[in-house]
C-alpha cells in the first residue's frame, strides 16, 4: 500500500494533499455536518432532543422576524458588495493602467496597510469618525453646515455598510487588479485603431475582459459579509442587527442551538443560491480564455 502510494505519480499526489485534506475535513466538513444535523434536532430546556424534525425550519418560515433579518442581511451584503466593488474598480484601474510598473508592488503594499491594524480597532475608528460627537459631526458643525449632529450615520444599517465596505476594499481591489493586469494592452490599441474612442474601448474591451476579476470580487465580498456579526453588533444599534447576530443569540443567550443551526443553514443556502445565480449570469465572461 505504502509502496503503491509513493511509487506512482497519482499516489504521491494523494499523499501530498492528504494532510491538508484531513485538516479541512476535521475543521470544515465535520462542523458543517454537525450544524446540519443540529438543525433537525430540538432543544428541550437543558437537553437535546435528537429525534428528526423540521420544526426549526417551520418556525423560521412562520415567524416574520427571521425572514426580515435575512432580508436585511442580504440587503446589507448586496449594498456592501456594490459600494465596495464600485469604489475598488477605479483604484484597481488606476494602479494597473496609470502606475509605473516598478511602483505597482508599492501601491499594492499600501492598499494592504489597513490589515496591519486589528479589525476591531478599525471598527472603533469608524465609531470615532461617525459618532454623535464624532469627526464628521463636529467637523460639519464647526464649519456651520449643520446645527445639530447627524444621527443617521451611526447605529444603523448605513454605518454597518460603510464600515464593511472599507474593511473589504482590498479584497475587491486585488482580484480586479489581477484581471486588469492580464489584459493585453495591444487589445486596447486595436480597439482604438478600429475606430472606438477611449470610453467605448473601456466598455467593449476593458470591462468585459475584467469580468473574471469583478465576479471574483463580488463573491469574495458578498459571501463573508452575510456571516459578519461583529460589525452590526458594534455599529448597527438596535435597528442594524443582522441574521448572524440572531444566530449568535440563539446559540448563546437563548441556548437554542438547533434553531441557530437551522438559521445558519438557511443563511448558507441563500448565499449559495445567490452566488451560483450570479456566477451563472456571468458565465459567458468567465469561460473560454486563451
Amino acid at each position, binding site marked *: 500500500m505504502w509502496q503503491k502510494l509513493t511509487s506512482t505519480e497519482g499516489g504521491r499526489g494523494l499523499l501530498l494533499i492528504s494532510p491538508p485534506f484531513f485538516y479541512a475535513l476535521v475543521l470544515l466538513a465535520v462542523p458543517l455536518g454537525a450544524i446540519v444535523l443540529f438543525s433537525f434536532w430540538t432543544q428541550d430546556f437543558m437537553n437535546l432532543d435528537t429525534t428528526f424534525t423540521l420544526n426549526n425550519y417551520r418556525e423560521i418560515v412562520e415567524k416574520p422576524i427571521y425572514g426580515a433579518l435575512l432580508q436585511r442581511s442580504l440587503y446589507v451584503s448586496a449594498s456592501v458588495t456594490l459600494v465596495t466593488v464600485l469604489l475598488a474598480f477605479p483604484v484597481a484601474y488606476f494602479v494597473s493602467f496609470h502606475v509605473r510598473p516598478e511602483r505597482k508592488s508599492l501601491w499594492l503594499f499600501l492598499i494592504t496597510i489597513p490589515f496591519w491594524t486589528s479589525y476591531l480597532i478599525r471598527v472603533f475608528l469608524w465609531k470615532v469618525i461617525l459618532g454623535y460627537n464624532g469627526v464628521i459631526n463636529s467637523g460639519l458643525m464647526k464649519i456651520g453646515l449643520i446645527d445639530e449632529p447627524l444621527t443617521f450615520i451611526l447605529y444603523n444599517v448605513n454605518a454597518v455598510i460603510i464600515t464593511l465596505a472599507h474593511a473589504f476594499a482590498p479584497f475587491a481591489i486585488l482580484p480586479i487588479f489581477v484581471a486588469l493586469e492580464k489584459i493585453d494592452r495591444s487589445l486596447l*490599441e486595436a480597439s482604438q485603431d478600429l475606430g*472606438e474612442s477611449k470610453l467605448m474601448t473601456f466598455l467593449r474591451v476593458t470591462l468585459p475582459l475584467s469580468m473574471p476579476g469583478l465576479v471574483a470580487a463580488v463573491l469574495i465580498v458578498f459571501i463573508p459579509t452575510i456571516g459578519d456579526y461583529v460589525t452590526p453588533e458594534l455599529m448597527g444599534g438596535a435597528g442594524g442587527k443582522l441574521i448572524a447576530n440572531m444566530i449568535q443569540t440563539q446559540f448563546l443567550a437563548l441556548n437554542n442551538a438547533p434553531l441557530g443551526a437551522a438559521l445558519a443553514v438557511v443563511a448558507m443556502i441563500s448565499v449559495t443560491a445567490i452566488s451560483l445565480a450570479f456566477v451563472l449570469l456571468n458565465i459567458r465572461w468567465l469561460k473560454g*480564455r*486563451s
Partner: protein
Amino acid sequence: MTALITLKGVNKYYGDYHALRDIDLTINAGEFFSLLGPSGCGKTTLLRTIAGFEGVSDGVVTIGSKDMANVPANLRPTNMVFQSYAIFPHLSVGENVAFGLRKRSDLTRDAKAALVDEALAMVGLDGYGKRAAHALSGGQRQRVALARALILKPKVLLLDEPLSALDKKMREQMQVELIKLQRHVGITFILVTHDQEEALVMSDRIAVMFEGRIGQLDDPETLYRRPKSRKVAEFIGKMNFLPAEVRAVAETIDLDVAGLGQVSVSFEQAPEGMDTGPAVAGIRPETLAVLFEGETTDRMLVDGVVDEVVYYGDMTYYDVRIAGVDKPLNIAMKNLIGRPVLDVGARTQVVWDARSLVVLR
C-alpha cells in the same frame, strides 16, 4: 503615382532617447512599402506615429494631404495588424471582424453580416465566423486580424511584424498571400519587418532604417544590388568587403581593389559624391564563382585556395583565400549537374566581374 502619406522632418524623443531623427518620407497610394531594420531602429515607432499611437515631437505627418497632428488613432484612415494580432479573446471570430463596423449606422445588420462573411472569405476563413477566437492557430489569428482591418476599407493597412510569430512554411505561404491580397484590394500596405528576405520578397519599395534614421530608400533590386552604404550592404544579404583605394573619378570611377587589382566601375555602383581616397569594394557571394575543371570563362580570374566548404544541398558556400586579402572571399555556388564539391585546400580560380562591384565609403 500619387503621394498618400508624407512625413516631413519628423522627430520623436522619449526623454533623452532620440527614437526618430529627421524622417522625410513619401509613401504612394497603392504601394507595398516596407520599413526594414534591426530591432530598436525606430521602424515600429515610425509605424505607430502613422497609426496615431505615438505623437511626433517635431515635424508633420499627413495622410491624404490632411495634417494628422490632432487626429487621434481612432479617427485616422489607417488600420493595423498587430504583432500579437490583438484578437479580442472574449469575442467570436465574426464579432472580432465586425468590431469596427459598430459605428456604420448606414448598414443594416444583414449587410454587416454579409461584409463579415466576405472579409472572412477573402482571407480564406469561410465559415469560421461562429468559432471562438481563442481556439485559433497562429496563422488563423493573423488572417482574422487582416480581415478585421480590411473590412473597414482603410486607406492604409499597417502591418507590424505580422509574420514573425509564424513558422517558416506558414510565413512563406502568408508572404505570397499578402502580396496577392494587396494587389487585389489595392490598399497601401506598410510593413514593418526585421527580416530582409521578407522585405525583398514583398515590397515595391523599402526604407532601411538604422538608429532612427532612414539609411536608404529604394526598390528591392536596387537596394540589394546597389547598396549605398556599408551598413545597408551588411544588413541586406551577404557581401564580401575588400579594402580599396579610389584613384580617379572621371567618366568612370577607377580604383585599386585588394586582391583583384585595378578596376573601373560606373557611377551607379557608388554612392553620390564619391571622391578619391580609401574606400571599400563590396561584392555579393553569388556574383562570384569558383571555376571548375573543364569550365571556361571570359570574365576576370584570380587564383585562390579553398579555405572552408559549407554544403547546403542546393548550394555550396566556399570560403576562398586570394592573395593580398586577409579575409577569404565567400562564394555561393549552385550545385549544378556534374559540378563536384571541392575539398578544403584545393587550388582553384575565382571568377569575378567589375559590374557586380559596389564601391562604398
